[in-house]
C-alpha cells in the first residue's frame, strides 16, 4: 500500500471531497496562497482556485461564525484553525451557535461544518500554544469530536466528517503531520463513532488517541517484553464515544489505563473511568488509572516541558500499577 504522510492524507481527504461536492470549501488563515501553515492544504488553491480556498483574516470567531452561516444555507465549510489554541476565540460560535442551531430551530437548520486543526503541545512553544481542547468541546451536545493518530484514520475520518451533516470538531497535531503510514489510493471512509483496536492483547486495556497513540503502542511493545500483553484501543471519535469497544475490551482484560494529553481534570479520561465504573464495576480487577499531562501550564524549557507531559515511561508505570507489577 502506498505510504503517505499525515498531511498528505488530510490534504487528500479534503481534495477528494471538494472534487465530489461543489458545496465544500476550505477557509482558514494561510490555507490558500501559503498552502497552509503546516502545508496540509498544499496544492489546493492551485487545483480549486480562490472561489473555494480562502485565506481568512485573523478573526477566528468571525470566520467560524461565517462557516455557521454558510452551512445553514447549504454550503459545507471546512474551517481550519491554525491551532486550536486560537480556536478558543471561536468557542462562542462553536458552543453557542454551531452546536445549538439545529436544536433550537426545532430541527430546521443543521450546520454541516468541519472545524479542523492541530491541538496539544508541539515542542517548546510554552503555555499559550500547547493545549488540547477535546474535553471542553466533547461535553457540548450537538458537536461531534474526532481526534486522529495515524494518516489512514485521518483520511478516512476527515472524509466522513466532511460528509457528516453536523458540526464536527477534528483534532490533529503539529507533531504528527510528517508521520507516515499506509494510505490506499482507492477511496475509503471510516465511520464516525467507532474506536479501533490497534493492538489486541489480553492483560490490560490501554485507550489512547491523537499523539498519545504512538507512545502507547511503544509502551505496549516494551511491556510485552516483560510479559504484559496490552490491548491498545485508538479512541478516534471522542463524541459520540464507542462504549461498546471499550467495554468489550475491559470485560476481557479487567484492567484499564487511559492515556491522554489533556489536563487531569474533567477530561475524556475521567469520563471513560466513570462509564466503565458505572457499567463494569464488578469486572474490574484494579482501579482505572489515567496517564495525562500534569495539572500545570506547559513550560517552554525542553526538560520542563518533558517533565510535565505524558510519556512512554509514565504509561509503562501506570500499566504496572493496574497489573500490580510495581517494581
Amino acid at each position, binding site marked *: 500500500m502506498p505510504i503517505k504522510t499525515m498531511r498528505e492524507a488530510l490534504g487528500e481527504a479534503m481534495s477528494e471531497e471538494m472534487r465530489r461536492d461543489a458545496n465544500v*470549501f476550505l477557509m482558514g488563515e494561510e490555507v490558500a496562497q501559503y498552502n497552509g501553515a503546516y502545508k496540509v492544504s498544499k496544492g489546493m488553491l492551485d487545483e480549486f482556485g480562490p*472561489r473555494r480556498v*480562502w485565506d*481568512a*483574516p485573523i*478573526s477566528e*470567531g*468571525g*470566520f*467560524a*461564525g*461565517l*462557516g*455557521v*452561516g*454558510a*452551512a*445553514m*444555507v*447549504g*454550503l459545507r*465549510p471546512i474551517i481550519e484553525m491554525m491551532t486550536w489554541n486560537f480556536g478558543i476565540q471561536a468557542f*462562542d*460560535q462553536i458552543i*453557542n*451557535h454551531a452546536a445549538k*442551531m*439545529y*436544536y*433550537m*430551530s*426545532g*430541527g*430546521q*437548520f*443543521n450546520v454541516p461544518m468541519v472545524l479542523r486543526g492541530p491541538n496539544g503541545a508541539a515542542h517548546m512553544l510554552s503555555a499559550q500554544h500547547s493545549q488540547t481542547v477535546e474535553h471542553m468541546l466533547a461535553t457540548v*451536545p*450537538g458537536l*461531534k469530536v474526532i481526534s486522529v493518530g495515524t494518516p489512514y484514520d485521518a483520511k478516512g475520518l476527515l472524509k466522513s466528517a466532511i460528509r457528516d*451533516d*453536523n458540526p464536527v470538531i477534528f483534532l490533529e497535531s503539529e507533531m504528527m503531520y510528517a508521520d507516515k503510514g499506509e494510505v490506499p489510493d482507492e477511496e475509503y471512509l471510516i465511520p464516525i463513532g467507532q474506536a479501533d483496536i490497534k493492538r489486541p492483547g489480553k492483560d490490560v486495556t490501554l485507550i489512547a488517541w491523537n499523539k498519545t497513540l504512538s507512545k502507547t503502542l511503544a509502551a505496549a511493545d516494551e511491556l510485552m517484553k516483560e510479559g504484559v500483553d496490552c490491548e491498545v484501543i485508538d479512541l478516534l471519535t471522542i463524541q459520540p464515544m464507542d462504549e461498546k469497544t471499550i467495554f468489550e475490551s475491559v470485560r476481557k482484560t479487567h484492567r484499564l489505563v487511559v492515556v491522554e494529553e489533556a489536563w487531569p481534570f474533567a477530561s475524556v479520561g475521567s469520563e471513560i473511568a466513570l462509564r466503565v465504573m458505572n457499567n463494569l464495576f464488578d469486572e474490574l480487577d484494579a482501579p482505572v488509572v489515567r496517564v495525562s499531562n500534569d495539572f500545570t501550564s506547559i513550560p517552554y524549557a525542553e526538560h520542563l516541558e518533558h517533565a510535565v507531559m505524558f510519556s512512554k515511561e509514565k504509561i509503562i508505570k501506570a500499566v504496572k500499577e493496574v497489573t500490580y507489577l510495581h517494581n
Partner: protein
Amino acid sequence: MAAAKKPTLSKELLVQMYKDMLFWRRFEERVNQAYMKQKFSGFCHLYIGQEALGVGVQANLTPTDYMISAYRSHTQAIGKGISPDAVFAELFGKVDGCARGKGGSMHMFSKEKRFLGGHGIVGGQVPIAAGVGFAIRYRDENDICVCYLGDAAANQGQFFEALNMAATWKLPVLFIIENNRYGMGTDIRRTTSVDKLYKRALAFDMPHSEVDGLHAISVYEHTQKVIAQIRKDKMPHLMEAHTYRFRGHSVSDPGTYRTKEEVKTYQDKDCIKVMGDYLMKHELATEKNLVEWDKKVREDVKKSEDFAEKSPIPNVEEAWMHNYI
C-alpha cells in the same frame, strides 16, 4: 418631513405598510398580555415602537432574500413570512411553533421563509450573516441577507470581524443597526465614544448610511436605494436606523433609566399614529378605515393566540431530538 410631501409610493404599498405596523403592534401587545397572564415564561423582548423600521425594510425584500436577527424579532419573523400562528405557538412552547417549542421567544426560525433566527447571544448573528452573504456570493445568486443588530451589539468584537470580512470579500449583506439608544438599561453613549454608530463602517471603507427609523416611508425609500445598490455592486452596507422602544428591554424591565419626557417625545412620534395621519391627510384612508383595520387586526392576533393555545405541547421525546441530524 415625509408627511408634508405628496405621496410617491402607491396607495397599496402605503396601506399595506400601515396594516403591517398595526399588526406588529397589536401582536406584541397581545404577547405582552399573555405573558402578564403567565401563559408563558422566559425572556420576552417586544418590538413596540420600532415597527416602522422593520416594516419599511421588509417591504423591499423578496421571498428568497435572507434575514437574521437577535431576540427582539417576533414580528420581524412574521414580516419575513412566518405565520403569526407559528410565532405565537412558539411563545407558548407548542409543537406548532416555528421552532417546535424548543426555541421560544428569542429563537424564531423558518428554513422555508429564509428567516435564520432569532439569536440570544448579542452580536452572535452578525458573522453568521456574513456567512449567508458568503454563500450567496459563492453560488453567484442575486439575493441579499439582512442582518439586524442592536446599538449595543455594535460594541461586540465579532460584529467588527464580520464587517471586515464582508467588506473585504464583497458579501451582499445589509447590516442594520437598530439604534433604539439603549442596550438594556445603558444609554449607548455611555459605552461607546461615537455619536453615530454608522461610523463603525469607516474602519472598513464600507458603504454606510443613516435613516430616520421612526417613519416607515423614509425607511422604505432609503432601504430601497440601499438594497438596489447592494444587489448591483455586490457590496455590503451598514445602515444605522434611529428608533426607540416604548417598553422596557424585556417584559420584566420597568425601564426607569429613561425619563418620562424622553419616552413621551418618542410616543408623540409613534410611527403608527404618524402613518395613520398621513394616510388620512392624503385621502388614502378614512378614520373609519383605520378603526376597521384595527378591529380586524385585533381579531387576527387573537386568532393566533387561540391557535397557540390549542396547539399541543411537543411530545416529551422531542426534548432529546435534534441535537444531531
